């Protein structure tokens, strides 16, 4: 055998990113290659995303193997994102995983995308038992490990924070991805305009905030940068408040920030502030592993494979609406 430890190939395919990561069983990253769908206009049309992934999956897998300096036959396990996400897109990941599993006669394992975000954060940031704020285009979740599960303490009641920012960005004519552009725009203003601030216990709602911001833009009485600033300040203050509330309630001493929106410096600053207030260690997952990537799937696949063994092929069905708090986490005791 060319490699001392077993190798896993992880496939991320829940939304706009098709990503393949190769990792050894000790958690060493060997390669990761992404292909991301960028819409010309509008949001993610599942059909168009699916087409792009179908056209690119082979190239990405080949590139990942080349970067890792290994061959397909060196791989010992295939992990793929089986939930949650857009059905047609999850399907491609599952089909490619099953095909490779059959061809190479190796086990394949399905992984929950949200749990993968937390697990790769724990590995990369070297922390043990964090309260996690996971913010992305698809999810807004405050989670911590309790009673053998990743419990959801707070979440959005309607749209996700990333989705809200992207929609707002589109309305003011900014192309995808909107997050970094809104962050830049917000920097140009210091004028706060009051917007709806909706927190229910540890849950949040962003749809009213979005509508109000859109109305401000349509009214043409404020600078676009003022609205962007106020939108960001309001939304992030809400996120920070519920994170702090969950932190006070769970009494965890580590805080992890992950997901695509974790790249926002202002949000990092705010979460860092409350972590310090509660004497908790604060870590942001490095951007490469905070957004959707194949490595997080690979690593979570390893964890589940080691504790549960080879799954039945029937257990590799996709589940577009699986909640992370329904799954037990046997590798954490």
């Amino acid at each position, binding site marked *: 055998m060319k490699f001392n430890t077993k190798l896993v190939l992880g496939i991320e395919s829940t939304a706009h990113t098709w990503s393949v990561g190769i990792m050894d069983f000790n958690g060493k990253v060997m390669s990761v290659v992404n292909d991301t769908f960028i819409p010309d206009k509008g949001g993610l049309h599942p059909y168009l995303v699916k087409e792009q992934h179908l056209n690119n999956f082979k190239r990405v897998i080949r590139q990942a193997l080349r970067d890792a300096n290994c061959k397909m036959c060196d791989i010992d396990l295939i992990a793929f994102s089986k939930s949650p996400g857009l059905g047609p897109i999850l399907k491609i990941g599952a089909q490619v995983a099953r095909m490779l599993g059959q061809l190479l006669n190796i086990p394949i394992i399905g992984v929950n995308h949200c749990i993968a975000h937390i697990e790769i954060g724990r590995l990369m940031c070297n922390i043990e038992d964090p309260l996690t704020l996971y913010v992305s285009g698809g*999810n807004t979740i405050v989670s911590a490990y309790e009673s053998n599960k990743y*419990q959801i303490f707070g979440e959005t009641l309607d749209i996700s924070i990333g989705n809200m920012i992207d929609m707002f960005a589109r309305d003011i004519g900014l192309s995808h991805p909107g997050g970094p552009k809104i962050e830049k725009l917000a920097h140009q203003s210091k004028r706060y305009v009051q917007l709806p601030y909706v927190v229910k*216990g540890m849950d949040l709602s962003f749809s009213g905030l979005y509508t109000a911001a859109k109305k401000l833009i349509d009214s043409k009485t404020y600078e676009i940068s003022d609205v962007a600033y*106020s939108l960001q*300040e309001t939304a992030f*203050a809400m996120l920070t*408040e519920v994170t702090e509330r969950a*932190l006070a309630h769970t009494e965890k001493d580590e805080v992890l920030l992950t997901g695509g929106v974790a790249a926002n410096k202002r949000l990092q600053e705010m979460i860092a502030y409350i972590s310090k207030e509660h004497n908790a260690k604060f870590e942001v997952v490095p951007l490469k592993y905070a957004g959707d990537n194949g490595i997080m799937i690979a690593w979570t696949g390893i964890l589940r494979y080691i504790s549960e063994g080879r799954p039945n092929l029937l257990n590799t069905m996709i589940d577009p*609406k699986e909640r992370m*708090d329904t799954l037990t986490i046997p590798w954490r005791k």
Partner: protein
Amino acid sequence: MSASNSIVWEKILRKGAEANLYEGYWFGKKVIFKHRIKKDYRENILDSIIRAKRTINEGRALIKVKEEGINVPQVYELDTENALIIMKYIEGQKLKDLMPKLANSEKIPLFYNVGKQIATLHINGHIHGDITTSNIIITEEKQVFLIDFGLHEYSDSIEDKSVDLHLFKRVLISTHGKDFKPCFNAFLEGYQSEYKLLENDDSKLIIKNISAIERRGRYVKRDEKEFG
């Protein structure tokens, strides 16, 4: 220490998401100082709006709710300028901290009583807004006290009451998973027992609506949506 003509801040008890709690004395009485300190992470205007609004909101709610016979701390002083509430110190323990120390047989009557208190709150048109086991204090005599009314709202709608119960249900599942079923059932029984005394018993509708809220949530499967 507790001179009868002075106000003494003794020590910090807890840093919450909204406020810092200090223990001390107010003209000889043992009190809690709930200070909504400025949160430097927040935009200045937004910060002052939130702090002022919630201080007034909580102060008013505590006074109103107390009049209706619900166990909450007595408000001694409401200082909106400094976002400060001075209230009676309730001797007891947070339900969250008490849970591991209780036998199962002790938990059931306790949750039944919590249910009764929340029902009285709802019947009188109050929504707590943040019912968690951290916001319930149990005294030595096993009396139930509700605290933290910063997110309080006035409402008579079934939806708002269901949301209140839904939040509590979620906290029980995530924090006290093993005790969830018997405790939540006892809670609902206590809740319904108060409503049964009324002519219009809305409790069935309110409880039924919890599952409607759950089905509206994220990542709920279609078959559960249709047949719930």
